[in-house]
């Protein structure tokens, strides 16, 4: 019950914070979203470790979930490196990230891979064998992760259109 409400709290904040993403500076929001993704992956790993430790999920399911979160983390690190390469500092010393059209295809490919990794995990037999209540807690967190990845996709797609 406690874990269920903890993931619900994360979902509430994700929903509100992503509402404001469209209003901010796209480059800054992009970096904020990569920081959010890193945070959710960290929370997800802690949750999987605890659930496996208390026997709520099988080791096989925990391994699949950890491998998927690791893949998302690797992709997110790549996005951070790409964002760093588009960092621009103006004459007054203000730093911004300018997302150019070139490179956006690569970013979208990285983001699509992350989304596919999460969706593959959700339909994996080991993952589906987790009892529904426990699985829902993990799926709630994965949905928050997916919502943030969708926000990143929207930011890159908007930069591509400009």
């Amino acid at each position, binding site marked *: *019950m*406690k874990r*269920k*409400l*903890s993931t*619900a*709290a*994360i979902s*509430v*904040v994700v929903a509100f*914070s992503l509402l404001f993403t469209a209003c901010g500076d796209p*480059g*800054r929001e992009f*970096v*904020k979203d*990569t*920081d*959010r*993704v*890193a*945070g959710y*992956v*960290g929370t997800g*790993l802690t949750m*999987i*470790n605890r659930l*496996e430790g208390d026997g709520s999920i099988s*080791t*096989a399911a*925990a*391994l699949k979930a*950890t*491998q998927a*979160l*690791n893949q998302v*983390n*690797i992709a*997110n*690190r790549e996005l*951070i490196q790409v*964002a*760093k390469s588009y*960092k621009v500092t103006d004459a007054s010393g203000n*730093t*911004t*990230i300018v997302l150019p059209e070139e490179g956006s295809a690569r970013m979208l490919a990285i983001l699509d891979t992350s989304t596919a990794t999460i969706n593959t995990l959700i339909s994996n037999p080991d993952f589906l064998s987790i009892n529904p209540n426990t699985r829902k807690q993990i799926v709630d967190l994965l949905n928050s992760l997916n919502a943030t990845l969708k926000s990143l996709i929207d930011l890159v797609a908007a930069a591509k259109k400009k």
Partner: protein
Amino acid sequence: MDNILTWINSLGVFFLQLYIEILKEAKRSGMSIDELIDSAEKQSAQNEATASEMINRFKAKLDANNTVG
């Protein structure tokens, strides 16, 4: 009575988690781009180390179970 206490406890956890998440968002809002990149990089590096340790531990556990079986 136990059920009521469990509910109060769970709601307490919900609001504590909500408060933590709001604090994290507020912290992000006050950070510069360089600080945000630094924060994301540090958390990602920590995630990578944690995931690597967990993957190795789970694989070893599965291998041990298979050997016993």
